[in-house]
């Protein structure tokens, strides 16, 4: 068994080395496949970051009447924090709201004059509510709307800005979910096509050896002994292609990291590549070895029927 394994491995290495042109072709195609797989990993990271960024910008803002007391607002804040859909509630008091407003309108003399004429702070305090999932905003807004803090007699809420922006937020959420689904589907299709191309390339390389396989059969070689060296060569194609792909992505991500970080939702691809190198190395190498090995295994099968 040990001797057979040694012979099969040696034979696989020799086939790989002596069929240099065929090996180079198979490796080139596998580099393309592995690049597609690695690119989809990067794309999915960029996509996740973009979605997180959009999700971050969506919230429900409740603006209170100027007469609302801080203790009532705090009461509502803790009620909201007890909702399982809510991830974070931020309180902005009237003074902070005014300061922020003035900061945004710095240099606007008309505003200053109007405020001076009013003689008091016209802005109410507010609560900014973040949900764990964007689809929960509607439920949170409905809860606020139906709560005791919004009743006609002693309600403290002036307006809920989610209700004003509801249509655009719902549209954004729909677009995001569609994009997520479309992204996942296109990744699956891309990877499937790449694997199919690799499989066919390896099948062609083994097609050139079909006479050899029949001769091996005629000298009484067992199925495992014939198939083994081809599988070893297939695994080697995958290994070399994985190393080449990972090497190729180093300068590529370095360049993209420098030039296109803004385009990729602020994700620096080079840092992402370096920080996750261990996992990416494992993923690409395993993908290469599995695709190469299985493709060879299946391709030889056809010529073993004798």
């Amino acid at each position, binding site marked *: 068994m040990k*001797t*057979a394994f040694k*012979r099969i491995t040696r034979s696989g290495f*020799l*086939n790989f080395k*002596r*069929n240099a042109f065929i090996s180079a072709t198979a490796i080139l195609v596998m580099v393309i496949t592995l690049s597609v797989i690695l690119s989809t990993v990067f794309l999915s990271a960029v996509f996740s970051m973009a979605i997180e960024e959009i999700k971050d910008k969506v919230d429900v803002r409740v603006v209170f009447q100027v007469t609302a007391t801080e203790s009532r607002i705090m009461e509502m804040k803790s009620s909201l924090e007890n909702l399982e859909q809510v991830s974070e509630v931020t309180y902005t008091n009237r003074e902070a709201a005014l300061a922020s407003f003035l900061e945004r309108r710095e240099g606007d003399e008309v505003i200053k004059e109007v405020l001076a004429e009013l003689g008091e702070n016209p802005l109410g305090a507010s609560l900014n509510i973040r949900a764990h999932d964007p689809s929960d905003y509607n439920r949170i807004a409905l809860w606020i709307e139906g709560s005791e803090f919004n009743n006609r007699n002693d309600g403290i809420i002036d307006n809920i800005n989610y209700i004003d922006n509801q249509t655009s937020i719902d549209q954004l959420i729909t677009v995001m979910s569609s994009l997520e689904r479309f992204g996942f589907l296109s990744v699956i299709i891309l990877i499937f096509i790449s694997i199919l191309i690799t499989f066919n390339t390896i099948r062609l390389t083994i097609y050139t050896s079909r*006479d*050899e396989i*029949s*001769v*091996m*059969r*005629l*000298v*009484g*070689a*067992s*199925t495992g*002994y014939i198939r083994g060296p081809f599988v070893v060569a297939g695994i080697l194609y995958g290994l070399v292609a994985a190393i080449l792909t990972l090497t190729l992505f180093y300068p590529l991500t370095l360049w993209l990291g420098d030039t296109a970080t803004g385009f990729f939702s602020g994700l620096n691809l080079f840092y992402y590549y370096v920080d996750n190198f261990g996992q990416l190395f494992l993923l690409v190498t395993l993908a290469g070895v599995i695709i190469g090995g299985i493709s060879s295994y299946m391709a030889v099968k056809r010529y073993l029927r*004798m």
Partner: protein
Amino acid sequence: MIHFDSISKIYPDNTVGLSEVTFSIDPQEFVSIVGPSGAGKSTLLRMLLAEDRPTDGSIFIGSTNILDLDKYELNDLRRNIGVVFQDFRLLPHKTVYENVSFAMEAAGKSDQEIEEDVPYALELVGIDHKYASFPNQLSGGEQQRTAIARAIVNRPEIIVADEPTGNLDPVNTFDIVDILRKVNELDTTVILATHNTGVIDNLAKRVVTIEGGRLVKDSKTDRINSL
């Protein structure tokens, strides 16, 4: 003993490959199967190697009907039959030495046995000086010598040579037939198929003639009948 028992081969388009061919070959015998191209010689040999199955009939080696063997038993059978083809069929990416040692590796022989037997087989056929060459670096005669070395290296009981001189010049033809004769003298049964009657004229061995898929003449039975 090898016994072809009423072997017939009819192809799906009703072409007759072989028709009720019956004859036996004794152990250590040298038998030439002759006939024009398309007579059915190669078909008969392919059946002996279980590369093809007859439509009807049985093929016995000893008491075993080879048509009843499973794929593992077929591997064992093939390791016990050395094969030489007209087109040599060497493994193109292996050296002369590796082509011959492959047959021993496939038979599960040890490294030590391979190191001892391969040089001996190469020397026997006169190709030992080219042990590191690849098939495309060899002449036709040298390739056929390598193929014979591969066929004999496991010391099989039977050697099957299908038109082994078909691609060779007269000098190499003579040499190859001479090697097969020597192999036979080492107690190996040799079955030589050829359409070139000149090859067998000097052998003075048994000749079976096949034409149109039928056995039309067997020098052994003719001799017995004439006694």
